[in-house]
């Protein structure tokens, strides 16, 4: 018991500098933001009232939630397929999957966003090819809209969904899958009625991570949305640096942080932090 306590103390001491850093770098400034939301331009709850009535703010919130939801579904589904190959494939398949998962981490988010612009724009690779083979006559609007934003964000977020899924799939007892086959279940049926339900905690964890990340996206929507698919983070930026309407920007930030905090609380009810790496 004593050893356990002193272990905990030791761990706390080791973490102390990091905690101090996080407090100084994030919590303290955030308290300032909270203060602005109640005091600028005049003290009171005015900014929160405006938040509830301002059409633009509401449409941005709704768009953000919609994009985040679509990105979550697509990313988790794609990540699930990749992870199945990564965890259960042949050695060659594993290598390919691992490559697909790791490579995106080596390229910055900015580079990747511009890469997608090059692919998806009116005179980008995809539209040029499709026109060249005569499949379409007019270029498709693939970028500077929600579609482009969703593509870019999904691409960025898939690897983050892979890790919780992989940990769920790795802890699964193979014999349970064999048992299902032995009881007469086809491979397909075994996958859908045994494998997928047994990796539920991984799916929930992956979905929450992707969703939370999506809410705070800035660079990708700014570049691939071309100003037409503004998401919450970009809106906060615009309010603070361009309008300047610091009070409203601060209020939006506070709402966003509270929302994300609630989602994180939900996340940790379903998955232990260890499973996410």
């Amino acid at each position, binding site marked *: 018991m004593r050893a356990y306590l002193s272990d905990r103390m030791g761990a706390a001491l080791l973490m102390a500098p990091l905690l101090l850093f996080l407090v100084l770098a994030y919590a303290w400034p955030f308290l300032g933001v909270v203060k602005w939301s109640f005091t600028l331009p005049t003290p009171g709850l005015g900014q929160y009232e405006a938040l509830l009535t301002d059409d633009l703010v509401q449409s941005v919130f709704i768009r953000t939630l919609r994009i985040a939801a679509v990105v979550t579904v697509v990313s988790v589904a794609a990540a699930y397929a990749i992870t199945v190959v990564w965890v259960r494939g042949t050695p060659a398949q594993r290598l390919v999957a691992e490559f697909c998962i790791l490579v995106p981490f080596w390229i910055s988010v900015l580079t990747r966003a511009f890469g997608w612009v090059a692919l998806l724009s009116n005179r980008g690779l995809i539209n040029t090819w499709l026109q060249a083979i005569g499949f379409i006559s007019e270029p498709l609007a693939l970028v500077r809209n929600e579609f482009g934003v969703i593509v870019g964000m999904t691409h960025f977020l898939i690897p983050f969904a892979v890790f919780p899924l992989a940990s769920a799939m790795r802890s699964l007892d193979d014999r*349970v899958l*064999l*048992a*299902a*086959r*032995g009881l*007469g279940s*086809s*491979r397909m049926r075994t996958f859908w009625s*045994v494998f997928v339900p047994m990796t539920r905690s991984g799916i929930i964890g992956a979905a929450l991570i992707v969703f939370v990340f999506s809410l705070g996206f800035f660079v990708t929507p700014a570049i691939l949305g071309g100003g037409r698919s503004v998401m919450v983070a970009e809106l906060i930026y615009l309010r603070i640096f361009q309008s300047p309407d610091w009070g409203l920007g601060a209020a939006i930030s506070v709402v966003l942080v509270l929302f994300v905090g609630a989602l994180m609380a939900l996340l940790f009810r379903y998955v232990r932090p260890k499973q996410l790496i």
Partner: protein
Amino acid sequence: MQQPGRAAEIKAIGIGKSFGSFRALDNLTLDIGRGEFLTLLGPSGSGKTTFLMILAGFVQPTEGRLFSDGVDITDRPAEQRTAGMVFQGYALFPHMSVEANIAFPLKVRKKSAADIKRRVGEMIERVGLKGHEKKLPAQLSGGQQQRVALARALVFEPGVLLLDEPFSALDKGLRGQMQAEMKRLHQETGTTFVFVTHDQSEALALSSRVAIFNHGKLLQVGAPDEVYDRPDNRFVAEFLGEINMLPLKGVRPADNGSTGLCEDRAVSMRCKAETVRGDAILAIRPEYMSISGEATAGENGIAATATNSTYLGAATRLDLTTRQGAKVTVSVPNEIAAAALSKGNSVWLTWPAEKGFLLPHGGQ
């Protein structure tokens, strides 16, 4: 619930399995009769699970063919065979209730809802899980999980039930109870049972026949008393229980069996000296040997000195050394052991002729 006619008859011919250069099973030929209770017995790593997996269709043999009711099923995938399997550790579906676990094989066979309900209900009653239908496997005790696994494997009336060390995780009392229950289920369903264990007493108690494995080879198959009393070789003799071995000289066939010299005394055996001639080993189970003051003429017996005793409650285990230094262990009534020890010197070890059997000298 099930007609014995549904039980499968299995024939394995020349089955072999290599993992890389490692030989896990070698040239295994075995007939499993309709409705029989066959136990695969052997030490760890002897290939029991591998053979069971081949029967279930989870592992493809490198050589040999497998027949079920005369049909070649070697290349048939697991889901198309009619084998129920109980895994070590049970392998229940953790996200499904007891009921849903048991219903699973019926659902994949697209049985009607009413049919499923009836058969799952029957099965739950049969294995004594009433009142636990809605629980998840994690909410059950080890013994209850075991019952769910059995019910799930039997509910679709498989031709054969494969069980891989189903009781190894249970404590001794529960183990005995489940053994009795499994024997009952075997009689009630009439299905062919293939049961893996490395507990020899479990094998002898439950089975109609025992197949003994070692290093991927099938050494002997036979009824429990057959393999226990007349093992083909030294490994089987030793694996099935304690055994005393005495060196024998001048072994030759005799009127009804064979004779030889054991420490300069003539002894006779009922078994034939077919492959063994000259020097051999005489093997006798401890419980068949008794102690007396003097061997009467014509009786098998040698002189020995008691060296040690272990009180076992109902009997005493006595360690003795023969004149020529062979070690022998017997299990005798307590007062006889006390008498033998108090004498301090020579006693006679005797045994009936039909209880001694011959093993080749040296080797296996």
